[in-house]
C-alpha cells in the first residue's frame, strides 16, 4: 500500500489537518479515484491540474500511469512554474 | 522631418534660422536620436554639423585650447596634450555614456542639451571656458556658464550654432578634477557631480579655486564659498571639510527616481571634497612640490 502524505491546503480542506494514510492504489490515476472516494471533491482538485505529485521525492506532472509500489511515498504540492 | 548637412557654420545657421518649425542641430546625436525615437521631439529640420571643420577640430595656441563643439569625447580623450592641462574637463567629457557613446557624444551637445546632470558641464564652468556662437546676426562669445538656463533649456537664439569652446592658458601649478556619484560604475546619469579647478603657488598653497556642482539645481552651479574655503590653504582636511560643507549648503536639489534631495545634498559635499583633493594632488605634482 502506498503511503499518501496530505499536507498544506489539501490536508486542511479535506482531512482537517496533515494526514498520512495508506492507500492500495495501483497507480496515480487509481490513487486519484480512491482518494476522491475517501475525500469527496478531491478528484476535482486533481482534475484542475493545479497540483503536482511527488513520488518518493521525485516531482512529476500528470503522472497517471506511474505505478505505486508498496510503501511508495506520494505527496501533493502546488504545480511549480519554472523560469 | 528634413535632414540637411551643413558645410559651414554660416550655412548651418541660415538653415536653422530659415526653418519655420522645430529645428535641431545634430552633433553627436546621442541625446537627439534617443528623444526622436521616443517621440519626445518632432523636428521639422535636423542640421548635421559634423562635417564642419571648425566644429570637429582641437587647436592649441599660446597655452590655450579651442575645441570644436562636435568633437567626440573619444577624440578629446585621445588628444596629445589637453588631457594633461585640463584633466578634469576631459574626464567629465569622457564620463558621458559608454565607449560607443564616446565615439559620438560631444561637449557642445552636452552643454546645449542642458541637463542639470550633464557630466561635462561642471568642469567646463569651473575651467572658466567660453564659447563661440554663430547665428543669423553674426558671431558672439559667451561664458559656458551662461548657456544652460534650466533643465533642457539653453540661451541660444533661433538659428544660433555653438561652434567651439575655449580654454584659457593656465598658470603653473594648476589642475582640475571632476567626480560624480552613480549607482553603478558606468552608464548612469550622475546623481550628483562636482568639479574643482585650482591653482597653487610654489609652496603648494591654493591661490585660486572654483567649485561647480552638477545635479543639485536646475543648472550646474558655481559655489564661491567652496572655492574660497580652499584659497589660502594647502587643501588639508579642514579645508576639504569646509568645501564639503559649503557645497552641501549651496545645493538645492530635487528628489526623483535617481536620488533623494537629502542624499544629493550630503553626497555632493563628498564629491566636492574628493574632487578638490584629486585636483590638488594633480596640481601639486605638476608644480614639483
Amino acid at each position, binding site marked *: 500500500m502506498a503511503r499518501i*502524505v496530505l*499536507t*498544506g*491546503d489539501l490536508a*486542511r480542506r479535506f482531512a482537517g489537518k*496533515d494526514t498520512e494514510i495508506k492507500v492500495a492504489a495501483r497507480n496515480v490515476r487509481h490513487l486519484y479515484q480512491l482518494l476522491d472516494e475517501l475525500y469527496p471533491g478531491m478528484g476535482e482538485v486533481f482534475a*484542475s*491540474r*493545479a497540483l503536482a505529485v*511527488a*513520488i*518518493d*521525492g*521525485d*516531482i*512529476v*506532472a*500528470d*503522472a497517471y500511469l*506511474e505505478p505505486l509500489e508498496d510503501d511508495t*511515498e506520494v*505527496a*501533493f*504540492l*502546488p*504545480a*511549480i*512554474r*519554472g*523560469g | 522631418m528634413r535632414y540637411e548637412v551643413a558645410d559651414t557654420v554660416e550655412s548651418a545657421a541660415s538653415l536653422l534660422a530659415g526653418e519655420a518649425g522645430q529645428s535641431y542641430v545634430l552633433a553627436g546625436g546621442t541625446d537627439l536620436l534617443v528623444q526622436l525615437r*521616443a517621440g519626445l521631439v518632432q523636428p521639422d529640420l535636423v542640421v548635421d554639423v559634423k562635417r564642419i571643420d571648425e566644429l570637429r577640430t582641437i587647436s592649441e595656441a599660446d597655452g590655450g585650447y579651442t575645441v570644436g563643439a562636435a568633437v567626440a569625447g573619444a577624440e578629446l580623450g585621445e588628444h596629445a596634450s589637453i588631457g594633461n592641462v585640463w584633466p578634469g574637463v576631459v574626464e567629465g567629457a569622457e564620463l558621458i555614456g559608454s565607449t560607443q557613446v564616446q565615439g559620438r557624444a560631444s561637449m557642445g551637445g552636452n552643454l546645449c542639451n542642458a541637463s542639470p546632470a550633464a557630466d561635462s558641464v561642471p568642469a567646463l564652468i569651473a575651467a572658466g571656458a567660453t564659447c563661440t556662437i554663430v547665428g543669423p546676426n553674426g558671431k558672439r562669445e559667451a561664458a559656458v556658464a551662461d548657456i544652460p538656463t534650466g533643465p533642457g533649456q539653453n540661451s541660444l537664439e533661433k538659428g544660433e550654432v555653438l561652434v567651439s569652446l575655449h580654454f584659457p592658458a593656465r598658470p603653473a601649478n594648476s589642475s582640475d578634477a571632476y567626480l560624480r*556619484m552613480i*549607482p*553603478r*560604475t*558606468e*552608464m*548612469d*546619469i550622475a*546623481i550628483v557631480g562636482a568639479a574643482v579647478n585650482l591653482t597653487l603657488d610654489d609652496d603648494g598653497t591654493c591661490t585660486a579655486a572654483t567649485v561647480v556642482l552638477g545635479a543639485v539645481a536646475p543648472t550646474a552651479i558655481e559655489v564661491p564659498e567652496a572655492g574660497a574655503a580652499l584659497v589660502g590653504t594647502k587643501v588639508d582636511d579642514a579645508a576639504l571639510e569646509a568645501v564639503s560643507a559649503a557645497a552641501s549648503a549651496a545645493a538645492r536639489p530635487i528628489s526623483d*527616481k*535617481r*536620488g*533623494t534631495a*537629502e*542624499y544629493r545634498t*550630503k*553626497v555632493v559635499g*563628498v564629491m566636492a571634497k574628493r574632487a578638490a583633493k584629486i585636483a590638488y594632488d594633480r596640481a601639486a605634482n605638476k608644480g614639483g612640490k
Partner: protein
Amino acid sequence: MTYEPKDLKVVGTRPVRPDGVDKVTGRANFGADHALPGQLVGKVLRSPYAHARIVSIDTSKAEALAGVKSIIVGEDMQDIAHELSQSGESAIDVHDLSLNVLARGKVLYDGHALAAVAATSAKIADDAIALIDVTYDVLPHVVDVDDAMKPDAPVLHDDMFTKGLEETPTTASNIASRMEMAMGDVEEGFKHADVIIERSYKTKAVHQGYIEPHAVVASFGEDGSAYVWCSSQGHFAVRDLSAKVLGMDSSSIRVIPAEIGGGFGGKTTVYLEPLAIALSKRAGRPVKMTMTRAEVFRATGPTPATSMDVKIGATKDGKIVAADCEFRFHAGAFAGSPVGAACMAGLTPYALENARVVGYDVVSNTCKSGAYRAPGAPNGAFSVESAMDELATELKMDPIELRHINAAEEGTKAIYGPTFKQIGCKDVLVATREHPHYKSNLGPNQGRGIASGFWFNVGGQSNAAINVHEDGTITVVEGSPDIGGTRAAMAMMAAEVLGIDYDRVQVVVADTASIGHTDGTGGSRVTFATGMAVTNAAEDVVTQLRTRAAATMGVDVDDVVWQDGAAIATKGDAGSLSLAEIAATAARTGGIIVGRSSINAKGAGPSFATHICDVEVDPETGYIEILRYTSIQDVGKAIHPSYVEGQMQGGAVQGIGWALNEEYFYNEDGILENPGFLDYRMPVASDLPKIDTVMVEVPNPSHPFGVRGVGEAPLVPPLAAVVNAIEDATGVRMTELPVTPVKMLAALDARKEAAE
C-alpha cells in the same frame, strides 16, 4: 532511468557548441531577424493609466489612414472561461491571459495593451496608433502589495473572492488566494528557543532583463492555418496558448522557433503572438511585431514585488526549533504569483520539525508578473537567509556552521511533502567552508556574507528523434529552444551513448509540426529532461544498430554489444561493424535508422547552492562595491562544464543586480518611471569582479548521466549573500531591496544619529 557511473569520453568536455559559428558571425536568426515578403508592421496601443475603465475606443480615424490594413480591439477577442492551461510545467489561466493580451472593460496597468494595428510601414502603424481615440474613466489604483491587501484598497477584479480561506469571502478583494504549509507544532517549537529572530522584508519587482525584445512574424493562410516565427522559451506553449486565446486548433498553428535572445522565464507565455495572428488573418498578409524596450518593461514579465515576515527560533547550540513565515507576493494585474514556490522553497535547505509558511497571492495595478529563474525562491530565500544570518550572529556561530547543523540531507522531509533522496546540500556547505575565499582576509569597510538556496528543478515532457545518415553522421531532432548551449549538451550525450565523435552530431530544434510536444526551456529542465529523451533515443538507435549488425553478421542480437561506436560480436569470429558501416547499408537492411523517445521525465533532482560575497561599502556615499564572489552549487553532473559555470555566473550577477540596483520604479500615478536600460540599472561589466565557481558533482540518481538542472538555483542565494555581506561590513541590516547607495547611506546615517 537511473544513474550508473561510467567512463565518459564526451560528457564533461568543453567542445564548441554546434550553433556557435552562426552566433559569433551575426548569422543566427533571432526573433526580429525574420522577414516575409509583403509583411506588414504591427504596433500596439497601450494604456497610459494604471487603472481605468475603457468608456469607448474609436478606431475610425485610424482605419481611414492610407496603409492601415487591420486593427483589432478587445471586443474582437472572444471571451474565454477561467481554465488552467497546463502547457508544460506552467499553469496559465487562459481567461486572464486573453485579457492581458488585449484589455476589455478596464485597463489594469500602465502599458496594458488595448488595441493593435497592422500597416504597410512602421511610421503609418505609429500614426494609426496615435489616431485611435480612447475615452478613459480613470480609477483609483494601487501598486504596493501591502496596500493592495488593505480592506479599502481599490479592487481590480470584482469577481475575485479569496481562495484558500476556511470560508470563501462574499466581498471581492485583491487577495486572490491564501495558502499554508506546515509541519509539526510551531508554537510549541518556539517555546524551546533560546534565540528568536523576527523580521520583515520587502523586495521590488525586477525584470528578467533579456536583451532581445519580444518579436514575432505571423502569417495566416487561406486554409485557416497560421505560421508563426518567434523566439520563445517554448514554441509548443506559444502554439497552444495562442490557439486557446484565438479559439483555434493547435494543429492549425505551426510555430517555428527562432534563436532566443534570453528569457530567464520571461518568454514562457504569449504577448504579441495572438495579436500578430489575428492582425494577419484580418489583413490577409504576414504581420511582423517587435516590442520596444519600453514595451518590454511596461508590459512583460517582471518577478513580483514582495513583502515577507520571518520568525526563526533556535537553541543556543544552533538547532532550529521552529520557523514561521508569511509571504505576500503581488502577482501584478492578474492572479498567479509564484508565492507557492516561495512557500515551498524558502525553508527547504533545512531539516525542520516545526515550520509553517503562509502565502498570499495578491493583485495590484502593475504589469502581470511572469516567471523569473526559480520563480519565487530568490524572494523567499532573501528573507529566510537574512534571518539565518542574524541568527548566526546572535548565536555567535559561524553562518556556515549554523546552516550545516540544520542542513537537509537524504531522508529529510521537506515542508511541501516529499522526502529527499540523495542531495548535495551538505556537500555544498562543506565545499564553501573549505574554499580559500571563505578564509581570506578583509579590509576596513569590507564584509563577507554567505547564503544558501534551493530549487526543485522540474522534468516534464520532452521529445527527441535521432536520424542516422548514410555517411554515419547523425542529426538529433528535439523540441527545446537553445537558450544557453543546450544543443551542445544534447550532441554530447548522443555522441556519448553512440560512441561517436561529437563533430559527427548535428542538432536541430524542430518546429511544432516536426517533433512531438516538448515543454518549455524553463525549470532547469532541458539538459535533464530533453537530455534524457535524447539519451533514450540514442539507446533506441543502439538497439536498432545492434539488431541490424547481428543480422548482417549472422549472429544472435544478444551476442552483440555496443562499444566505442561499433557493434561487436561477443561470440565466434563475426567481428564488428561500426556505426558508419551499419548506416551505409541501412537502406538495404530495413531502411534508415531513426531512434525516438517521448517522455514525461521525473526525478529532476533538486539543486542546492551557497554563495560567498565580499563587499566594500563607502561610508560617505553608500556606494557598494562587489569585491569578490564565489558560487558553489551541486550540479549533479556537468555535461558541458563551461555552460554550467556560465549559468552559475550569470545567475549570481542577476542576483547582484536585484540586490543592489534593479527595481520597477512607479510614480504616484502608478506609471513606470524607468522603462529603459538607462534607469533600470542592470549590472555592467565594470561593476563586477571575477565570479568564481565551484561545481560540486553529486550525481542525480534518476538521470543516466547524473544530470541535475542547474539554471535556476544560481539566482536563489545572491540577494541575501549581498545583504549579509553589507551587514558584515557596516553592522547595518538592510531589509528592503534594492540596497541602492541612497538607501544605504540613509541607513548608515540613521544609525549614526541613533548612536549620538
